[in-house]
């Protein structure tokens, strides 16, 4: 989307340009405020203005020259770099297949970029060998150093590169980055750490890394969305991470919610029982997440039936919505009856969720919808049931047309 080079230099040049403008303008404002104007002040005002025009012209020339040079140079530069990167990809593939010799010493930027691209593309042992190459040639150490020091933009670039490299040895550097006071660095590091954690095979290292990452996220109080993303990005290591997050002494509600949502999204049945206590959590958002997780896991223990049934009558709309979705996991007769009742809920969204859940119950649910469309005491429930049935017909027609 963006060219990530030359922009910082441009900002510096613009800062100089703005300063060139600001000094005479500031002086001008001050002089005018001091009451200089009219025939006697004309000459002095003129000289200040002349200075301002001169410095602004210099600013304009400076900025324009840079923009024109950037346009011209970047086009050629990108072409050259793309060619060199391609050459490096070919060479690395040769190295991996044993057809070419491994280059000696440190690598140029394009060589590292080619390796990072291969690390993303290749799988299994070849990908592991790419990781070895990155480490052996010092690219990882160099990226770690750039991720820790320098300008924010440079550090972000290095963190993204490490995120693509997913080298387990860089995990702790990335976890340390989560503690950074700059939220951009903190969030980028958390994401990169999660992606790296996903590639940690050793169980002990995985638990240690997960624990460190969870602690860092809690300390930094990262928002729900980021924690959820981190959990999902951790892939197979997510179980370790979720376990640590849920076992935290006093976990924050957003963290718990993110961990539970992660359980649902990754369909981690191993945590099915862990979700149950959160179905009655004091925080509405956490309860909602627990109901969502139950629906996604497709598992509802018998002991939790009562909780879901109670949630169907909750005062909070979105709890009833999630409860309606989860209610399809109740025994069929009970589910049909309860969902049919919810078709008459005061909230349109709950009615819609109940209708969708009935559709999800298959022929029995559709039959119930048919009955509700004809006989339900509530007009809105009849309308919603009819709508859900119509949607099913539309889907069939669409499938036929397709």
């Amino acid at each position, binding site marked *: 989307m963006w060219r990530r080079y030359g922009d910082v230099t441009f900002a510096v040049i613009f800062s100089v340009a703005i300063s060139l*403008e600001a000094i005479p303008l500031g002086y001008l404002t001050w002089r005018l405020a001091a009451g200089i104007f009219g025939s006697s002040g004309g000459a002095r005002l003129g000289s200040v203005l002349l200075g301002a025009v001169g410095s602004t012209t210099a600013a304009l020339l400076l900025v324009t020259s840079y923009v024109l040079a950037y346009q011209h140079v970047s086009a050629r530069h990108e072409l050259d770099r793309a060619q060199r990167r391609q050459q490096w990809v070919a060479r690395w593939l040769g190295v991996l297949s044993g057809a070419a010799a491994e280059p000696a010493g440190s690598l140029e930027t394009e060589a590292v970029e080619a390796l990072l691209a291969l690390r993303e593309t290749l799988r299994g042992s070849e990908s592991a060998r790419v990781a070895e190459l990155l480490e052996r040639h010092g690219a990882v150490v160099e990226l770690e150093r750039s991720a820790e020091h320098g300008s924010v933009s440079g550090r972000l670039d290095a963190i993204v590169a490490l995120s*693509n490299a997913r080298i387990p040895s860089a995990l702790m550097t990335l976890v340390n980055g989560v503690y950074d006071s700059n939220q951009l660095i903190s*969030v980028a590091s958390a994401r990169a750490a999660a992606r790296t954690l996903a590639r940690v095979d050793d169980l002990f290292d995985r638990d240690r890394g997960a624990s460190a990452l969870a602690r860092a996220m809690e300390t930094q109080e990262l928002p729900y969305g980021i924690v959820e993303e981190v959990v999902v990005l951790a892939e197979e290591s997510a179980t370790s991470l979720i376990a640590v997050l849920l076992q935290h002494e006093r976990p924050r509600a957003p963290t718990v919610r993110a961990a539970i949502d992660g359980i649902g999204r990754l369909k981690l049945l191993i945590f099915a029982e862990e979700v149950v206590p959160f179905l009655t959590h004091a925080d509405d958002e956490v309860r909602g997440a627990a109901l969502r997780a139950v629906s996604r896991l497709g598992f509802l223990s018998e002991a939790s039936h009562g909780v879901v049934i109670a949630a169907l009558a909750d005062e909070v709309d979105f709890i009833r919505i999630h409860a309606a979705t989860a209610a399809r996991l109740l025994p069929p007769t009970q589910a049909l009856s309860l969902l049919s009742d919810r078709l008459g809920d005061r909230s349109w969204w709950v009615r819609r969720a109940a209708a969708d859940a009935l559709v999800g119950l298959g022929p029995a649910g559709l039959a119930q919808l048919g009955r509700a469309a004809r006989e339900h005491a509530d007009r809105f429930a009849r309308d919603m049931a009819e709508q859900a049935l119509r949607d099913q017909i539309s889907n069939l027609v669409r499938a036929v047309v397709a």
Partner: protein
Amino acid sequence: MSMFEAVLAALGVVTIVYFAVLSLLYGAFALIGLRAVILESRQTSDTELRDLMERDVFKPVSIIVPAFNEERSIVAAVRSFVTLHYPKFEVIVISDGSTDGTMDRLIEAFALVEEPRVWARTLSTEPVTRVMRSLRDPGLIVAEKANGGKADAVNAGINLARYPLVAPVDSDCLLDAQAILRATRNFVKDDSMIAVGGTVRPLNGATVVGGRATALRMPRRWIERLQIVEYARAFFLGRAGWSRMGALLIISGAFGIFRRDAVIKVGGFWTETLGEDMELVMRLHKEFARSGLPYRIVFSPDPICWTEVPSDLPTLLRQRSRWHRGLLTNLWRHRDMLCNPRFGRLGMFAVPFFWLFEGLGPVIEVVGFTSLLVSAALGILDMQVFWLFLGLAVLHGMVLSQVAAGVEAMLLQRYPSTSDRLILFAASLVEFLGFHQLVAVERFLATFQTGARRRRWGAMTRTGIPSEPSPPSQVAASSRR
């Protein structure tokens, strides 16, 4: 010195000080905006976007397309929306009492069939007369309603929307394939996000293939070129700067994404203004600040929306007049925010700035420059001072335009040739040698027409977006009604 001369002298001083302060402020915003763009460009990597798509961490979106007599562009626009690169979304087109062939074109192109439908009538709107679904695109819904204006049409779309995020998009716009993904990323990152605005770039001159702007070329007409500079300056410097300061007052009506519950909470778009986009953002700020709820409204330079800009002067001036009347209506409606510390930076800085430099700016500009001119003609002001001041104003504007053009050059999809860059440079010169002044006069006149002609769609003559998926065709944008 006579009274008349003293008044002229005072006006001159006010004008020069006003210009100096404005220039310094614009410079500062530009610097802040540039920094925001640099950081934003590194925040969202391609890997991150791929992760979002692959790992199901995204929020579904309802794209709402209000349309009134858009038979020339509607099919191409809708086709571009239904083929967006996003895992879960729906497109809701609201024909707001169109009297041309808008509905017929849509019915034919997307195999629409009428379907009785129940929906939550949360926001009150003019009656929806029919709802149609596409047999080809399962995510496409088209509704027809009685004419009520753009805001009313968007409100009807919000009622029909099923997803937690709503994205009103103009029907003469195209979106980049990843625009929705990049914009919604902000909602995943931050729970308190309630609205995100994207960048709007002129489509004129671009090559469009399959509903996407694929290659950029300078349009033929200068009036279109001037708007390229204007848009770049407004979005890459202005809005990015305001957003960075946490005081963004405008999300373009052409493309923005809002949390549906937040919009409903404040009562939806207000139908009695010509600037419903800005009004909604101001109301969101106000209501959320009052309720003490954490919230964020940001501009993100990454999601890009392409729009067809006016290619003739009368249309452009009408558009600017409408925008300015909308701005003043909104500022007046929310005058309680002015210098109100309760609203923090917004109340103490952004709203006063908009009053002084945007709302009343054209008045000060026109009256001030006229007074300087008269002063110079009468010999009260040294003629050399007058010319120097004029030169300074032009040069300052050019610097900002060049910075904006520089940001544009950093986009992967930019005007590719050095000659295009030179044309942009020339455009930034031409802009301040007549064009800017012309627009200022139009806005000056609009100041005294505020309050009139509400609830109308802005009439804009269009060429229309090419709808053929291939071969590449150019938006000539020259033969308009």
